[in-house]
């Protein structure tokens, strides 16, 4: 019981952060599924969503700011695809990747220009910022809201993909551009929709994430972006359930590592803290290396059937 009490806070924040990573990871995995592109700019779209919230909330009430920021983030994702990726549809994959890296830096530089590099405090969103107590552990409401909301959104998304006409088109396009266009599917529209969904989820993720984070800086998207990307690879890039499960595993493990010192000292395994929490971030990358070595296709990845 004592173990549970000590573990609980880390588990809770692990599940919460995991959900936030999941909302970002879905964007990576869907874009990869359809374009075979690792959209390096995705973490920065997440950052820009946070920054837009900072600025919009200075003049608009939250019930306007929240939908407006979601809308603007979706628009940003759509425009990035149209301007930076669509013209390169027939170019080698490497060119598109370089374009994505370019967009990533452009967004970071723009953010630096706008903020002057200062940490911007994220507005307090009522209710999800409230403090609650769960089995004796105090936390913010967002910790509980995140996994539930993530689960709901992912279920909705999977329903959309498996049971609607547009979802069927997305699955077809993910397999074969040319044959899809023979079916009369407008490839570019389907790709745009994919980016719109990814950005929508990243916008939601940013609201949940920054509610529990010191503030927004131009490079703040890099770490969660990278973790979400590793989650997507871990789950098998291209697979939505894989990305979600991967994100929760990474979020939970990372937070347990953060609590390792406390746990181990409490139970007398070690006499004094060893500073193990430093390795929380490193864990993600060790995990990445282990997957790439032992199961490059990830948990639920498709076999190496490259698109023709």
């Amino acid at each position, binding site marked *: 019981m004592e173990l549970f009490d000590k573990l609980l806070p880390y588990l809770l924040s692990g599940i919460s952060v995991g959900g936030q990573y999941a909302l970002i990871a879905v964007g990576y995995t869907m874009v990869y599924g359809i374009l075979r592109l690792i959209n390096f700019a995705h973490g920065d779209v997440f950052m820009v969503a946070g920054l837009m919230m900072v600025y919009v909330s200075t003049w608009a009430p939250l019930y306007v700011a929240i939908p407006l920021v979601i809308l603007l983030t979706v628009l940003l994702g759509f425009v990035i695809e149209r301007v930076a990726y669509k013209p390169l549809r027939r170019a080698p994959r490497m060119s598109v990747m370089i374009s994505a890296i370019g967009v990533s830096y452009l967004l970071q530089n723009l953010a630096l220009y706008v903020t002057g590099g200062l940490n911007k405090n994220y507005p307090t969103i009522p209710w999800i910022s409230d403090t609650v107590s769960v089995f004796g552990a105090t936390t913010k409401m967002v910790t509980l809201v995140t996994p539930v909301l993530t689960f709901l959104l992912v279920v909705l998304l999977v329903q959309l993909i498996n049971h609607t*006409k547009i979802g*069927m*088109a997305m*699955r*077809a396009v993910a*397999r*074969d551009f*040319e*044959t*899809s*266009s*023979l*079916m*009369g*599917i*407008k490839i570019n529209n389907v790709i745009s929709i994919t980016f719109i969904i990814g950005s929508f989820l990243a916008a939601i993720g940013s609201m949940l994430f920054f509610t529990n984070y010191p503030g927004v800086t131009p490079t703040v998207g890099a770490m969660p972006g990278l973790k979400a990307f590793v989650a997507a690879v871990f789950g098998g890039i291209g697979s939505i359930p894989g990305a979600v499960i991967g994100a929760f595993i990474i979020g939970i493990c990372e937070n347990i590592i953060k609590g390792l010192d406390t746990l181990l000292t409490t139970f007398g395994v070690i006499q004094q803290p060893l500073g193990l929490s430093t390795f929380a971030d490193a864990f993600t990358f060790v995990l990445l290396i282990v997957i790439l070595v032992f199961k490059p296709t990830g948990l639920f990845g498709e076999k190496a059937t490259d698109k023709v």
Partner: protein
Amino acid sequence: MSGVILSIKDLQVSYGGIEAVKGVSFDVHEGEIVTLIGANGAGKSSTLRSIVGLVRPRAGQIVFDGEDITGQDTTNIVKKGITLVPEGRRIFPDLTVLENLKVGAYMRRDRLDEDIEWVYSLFPRLRERSWQAGGTLSGGEQQMLAVGRALMSRPKLLMMDEPSLGLAPIIVRDIFSIINEIRKRGVTILLIEQNANMALQTADTGYVLETGRITISGTGAELLSNEAVQAAYLGT
């Protein structure tokens, strides 16, 4: 004879420096089965792919139903009533058989029940496998599904790129009898084949394509009895 539905004038296709099609002209009449036969690399696929806008012709004109469609987007051309059963069938492997049929009707907004029923009556094996993933079908079943999927768009012109490739002779015979069945519904058919024998027996009109040019033309029966065709394509 009824009206010309598809008219190809001096079509040229090249890939970089390679000229694949070097000035091909032919007409397809409404309700006809037309076949283009030729050896591997003769330019058959390139001709079909340029008709449906998957490759941009270097020169020439493609007129469908009285409208110049040269160089238009594939989705636009498909909307006008042309469909292609591509080489190698290109079934969507992780869509079910039924979804593969539905995706074939992607542009339509009306009810599909009757058409699905028609396709299932043409290919009863597909009905049995309705919920199976397309990728789990045998080669012959995939070809049936590819034809069924193409029919779902209610095409005026159905083009097929080597439907018999890699299939057992019995299945090939099945497919060709169904091609006749489809024609009875008023669908015009443009068929390309290396398997010249079946194609010429089925077709009203045939053309022989050699290294990007049409060298012989005539009715299916005329080509079957043509000595040059027999020597080169019928193995007799």
